[in-house]
Structure formats: C-alpha cells, structure tokens
C-alpha cells in the first residue's frame, strides 16, 4: 500500500508540473511585425527578430566561434521571458527599436524596450520602466522615440534611451502605435479615447470619446486631419488641433487597422464575422467612392502604390486592386492567415503570413512571388 501511495504522490507531482506548464500567463500571441530599412527586411516572430536580405530573402548570417555560420537573430538564444510581435522602428541615427511583447505576468519584471544595431543585432541600450508588454511599434520623431505600452502609458525617450516623459493615458493596455506631427502625439485607447499629448511635455492637450474601442493608430495627414476607425465600424475625420469632428461615417463591420490615406481618398478594410469589405472613402466628406467585397476578414492596413492598392486578408489572400476598385491581381497563401500590414521594400511587396511554413513572402508589383523566408532554413 505504501508503494501505491508513493506512486500516487509521484503521479500527482508530475501532473502538477504539467498543469503548471499548461497554465502560465495568458500567452501574448499576436500577429508578427515587419519592417525594412531599404536594404534588409526585419520580422518579429515571437522568440526572435530575424533579419533577411531584401534582394533574395536569405537570412543575414553570423559566424560562430567554431567557424560555422548561422542565421542572425535577436536575442542570440531563445529566452522564455522575451517575445516580439511589433514591427521594429528605425531612428535617424541608425538604431533599431523593438519592445518585449511578453504578457505582463506574475514575475513583476519590466518589459524592456530594446535598441539594437540592425547590422549586428548588438544591443545598445534598453529601457526598463514599462511594466506592460509592447504590443505596438514605437514611432520616431526627429529626436524622440514615442511608444505606447501595455501599462497604459505613452513614453517619450531620447535617442539614447533616457526618459523624457511618461503619461498615463489609460487604465487599459495600449495596443496601437502613437502618431506624431512633431508638436503633438496622438494615441487611441481600447477604452474609447483618442488622446492628444504635447510632444515636448507629455501634457494632455485634448481627449475625445469615440464610443468604442480604438484598436489601431489614427492616420495623420499633412493638412492636420486625423482619420481613425473604431471596433464599432465608425470612421472619423478629426482636426488634430482640437479633436473636433470634420465628418463621421459608419462602415459595415469592425475596423481593426489604420486607414491608408492618399490625397483625395483613404482606404480601409473591415471585418464582419468571417467576411470583410474593403472601402475607398473620399477624404473630403467621408462618402464612399467604391467598395470591394472580401470573403474573409480584413484586419491589417492596406498598402497604397501609385497604380494599385494592396490589402491582405485573414484567409491568406494578397489582393491588389486598381485605383478604381477593380481587381488587378491576387496571390493566395494556402492555409495562411495574414493580419500584418503589407509593406513596400525597394520594389517588392512584403507580407508576413501566420500558420504556414514561411513567415515572410515577397511579391513583385504584378503579384509574382519572388522569395519566401522560413526560419531555420
């Protein structure tokens, strides 16, 4: 009987460990972030920030002490306390800034914002004050880094990583990147607010309640207009000076991303259940120029090129439309979800699919796939 009791103890202890491993803080899984400096493409894919050549998608390699070569990534070795989800941002003096997106947990440790040398992935500095995870990219002003953190604060840092100011704008985590015109910093919150802060001091200039969560950044144009969408499908044009409303329209579905503005029109996709609609909206008055129905959700911001507008969808489609809304080309990635905004790097369109073998794919502007990148290959 004693033997059986010992067995029960051993079994229960093993189960405890197993359950504890199954538990953990809620995994901060999110879609990857992708960026380019015109020479290389950088992608954050949970454990690492990878760097690949823009020309062929091959990873930048480093030489090991034994003479062998291996793909370069940050951190050099996987660390269970670090996860990356946001697109790296680049400072004028050549730093790459990216934050730890691991969910805030019981460890009470800060979530660091890192400055890296993009050529070597060597860490230059880290900013340790945020207790919340970094789920949005930082935005770079002329000499200041602005970041919105999971602790509900907007941080302003000098380019050497020292804090200039920090302002609590929400009791909820901040999920979208701030935008700035140099005088003000604008950030949306999931508790329905669009907040404007003084870029020099962090003091609140104005705040407006938009009655639903803002899941994405506003788009800011040179004429001082902010365009921002909410989860309720409301799209607003606001004056950046005081937050006053220019126009407001309600689209069909939830808005998850920032609109892309190109002069007289803005482009934005929506998600309604498992379907979506892509809109071209006249910036002057908010009227709809044209729409394009999508059988799956549109979560990410589109990419606007001179002769086409490209959006990605949750069903793994890369859709290019002519500027009049007719289809130009479509590229499908079987079984993938694409919730990360496509970017233009050189002449290539870069997309970052999830749930498929490769984590990056490059297309030319006619939709022909040029390369893919799979970690570990």
């Amino acid at each position, binding site marked *: 009987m004693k033997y059986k009791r010992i067995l029960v103890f051993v079994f229960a202890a093993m189960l405890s460990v197993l359950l*504890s491993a199954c538990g*953990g803080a*809620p995994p901060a899984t999110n879609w990857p972030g992708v960026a380019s400096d015109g020479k290389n493409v950088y992608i954050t894919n949970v454990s690492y920030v990878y760097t690949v050549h823009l020309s062929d998608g091959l990873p930048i390699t480093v030489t090991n002490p034994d003479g062998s070569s291996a793909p370069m990534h940050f951190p050099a070795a996987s660390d269970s306390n670090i996860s990356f989800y946001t697109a790296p941002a680049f400072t004028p003096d050549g730093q790459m800034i990216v934050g730890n997106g691991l969910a805030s947990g019981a460890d009470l440790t800060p979530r660091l914002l890192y400055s890296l040398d993009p050529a070597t992935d060597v860490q230059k500095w880290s900013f340790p004050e945020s207790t919340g995870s970094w789920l949005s990219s930082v935005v770079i002003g002329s000499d200041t880094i602005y970041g919105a953190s999971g602790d509900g604060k907007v941080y302003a840092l000098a380019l050497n990583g020292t804090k200039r100011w920090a302002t609590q704008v929400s009791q909820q985590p901040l*999920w979208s990147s701030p935008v700035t015109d140099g005088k003000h910093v604008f950030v949306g919150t999931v508790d329905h607010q669009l907040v404007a802060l003084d870029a020099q001091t962090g003091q609140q200039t104005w705040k407006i309640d938009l009655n639903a969560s803002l899941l994405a950044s506003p788009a800011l144009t040179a004429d001082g207009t902010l365009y921002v969408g909410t989860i309720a499908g409301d799209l607003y044009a606001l004056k950046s000076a005081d937050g006053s409303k220019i126009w407001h329209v309600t689209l069909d579905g939830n808005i998850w991303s920032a609109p892309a503005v190109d002069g007289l029109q803005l482009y934005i996709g929506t998600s309604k259940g498992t379907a979506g609609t892509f809109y071209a909206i006249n910036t002057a008055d908010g009227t709809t120029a044209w729409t394009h129905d999508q059988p799956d959700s549109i979560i990410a911001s589109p990419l606007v090129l001179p002769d086409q507008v490209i959006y990605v969808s949750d069903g793994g489609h890369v859709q290019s439309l002519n500027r009049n809304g007719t289809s130009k080309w479509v590229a499908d990635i079987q079984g993938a979800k694409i919730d990360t905004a496509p970017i233009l790097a050189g002449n290539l369109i870069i997309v970052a699919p999830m749930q498929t073998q490769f984590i990056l794919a490059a297309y030319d502007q006619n939709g022909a796939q040029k390369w893919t990148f799979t970690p570990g290959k």
Partner: protein
Amino acid sequence: MDIFSLFIVTPFTNALLLIYALIGNFGLSIIVFTILVRLLTHPFMASQIKSTTAMQQLTQSEEYKKIQEKYKKDQEKLGQETMRLYKEHGVNPFSSCLPTLIQLPIMIGFYQSIGRAIGATPLHLLDVARNIYPWLATITPKASLATLIPIQSHFLWMDLAQPERVVLAFLPFGIPTLAIIVGITTYLQTKLTMPASSGPNDQSAQMTQSMTLMMPVMLFMWTVNYASGLAIYFIASNLIGIFQYAALGKVDFRRLLGGKGETALADASAKKKPGKRS
C-alpha cells in the same frame, strides 16, 4: 473550429460575455456563471454521490467480504463473483465515474472560455469577435462586441487577466494570495466531502486521503501562474461544491477538528443492509 470549441467553449464564452453585459463586472460574472454551471451539473453530482454510497454499502457488506475471502487466490473467479454481486444489487461500478467524466469537459470548457473572453491581445480579441454570437446583442445591446470591449478585468484588488500577487514593501516577491485560497478551499472541500473509511485496509479511502493533500497542491500550482479569473472560478466552485454536498447531507464538519468523523455514508452503511437501488 474543433468540436470541443463549437459545442463547449464558444457557448460558454458567449454565456459568460452575456452575463458580463448584464451585470457589468467580470469577477461577479465568473461567480454567477460558476453557480449556473454547478446547478447544471448538479444532477450528475447527485447521481455520483448516490452511486458511490451504494458501492460503499455493498463493499462493507458481509456477503462482499465473504466473496473476497473465499476467492482471494483466484482472481478470475473473484472478478466474476464480484460482478455477479454488483448485478444482483443493481450497482454499476462505472456509474460513479460517468458523472465525473461528464462534468470534466464542462469544467475544462469553462476554464478555456474565461481565458478566451478576457482577450489579452488584439489577436485574442479577434478570436472573441469571431466567436461571439451575433444574436447576443438582440438580448441586450450591451452584449454587442463594440459595447463589451474593453472587458473591465479589474475585480477587487485583482486584474483577472493576470496572475494575482499581493506585494508587500518588505518582501522581494509578491504573495499569491488567491492561489493560496484556492489550495485551502480545495483542501476543505475534499476533507469535508470524502467518504468514510470502511476499515484499515480500505484502499479507496487511502487514495482519497492522498488526494486530500494532492488536489490542493495541484490546483495551487495551476492557479499560481494563470490569470486570476481562473482562481476566482476554482474558489467559487469549491465553496459551491461544499454547499451542494451539505445540502445533500454529505458533509461532516467534525473532520475539520481532527476527528475521524462519520459521514452519512458510514451511518447509512451501519444502519442499512445493502439492497437493490431504488
């Protein structure tokens, strides 16, 4: 979507969000939903207790003990005779396990629905958006996705989306008070509701005693690192479980004072001869 999500997790997530829409507090919503789930599974629990009682009465009977003694060297015959005895008295040895097996997916589904409803990142929220029933908003406009988000995950001193710690200035670490309460209430529930031992060689009673220690440790380990919303569920579930057993007359508070106690099971066993289940 897999079958478990379709039939268990998604309906539970929607029910939890609907309760939240109606009462506006996620912590209280978890407690209310726990009560509802416990009420839903109460018939299974009552059936399980009844089956366990019948089984225990039978294993304490003279007839059972005689068979055990007579065929102790012939395991095959012992098995056949034991099964004959079960059949004769209308006892199904698996009927006490079945209710537990039915309850288990419900409990796992509930635990998953708490994690899903909180939505800690945009991708998690997208999952909520995909799985929320469109007709939920027809019950109350507050149950539309746009109105529900953000879920107010603060309850008392806790953020239900995060593991809970009480931080004291003089300690370098936080104290997981909620996980400790989970451990204590689990111990209380197991201690108060475990069946009485039929004798010094009662193997099932010895196993139950081991579980009295193991279960609190296991659930403590589980909840210490998980979102505190789950700990709220376990605490509410344990307390309601004790109340349910008490309502059925199956709680023996003397066990807490260190006495061996006599459960209603043992009482019934001493007074009644085993017979056909009614």
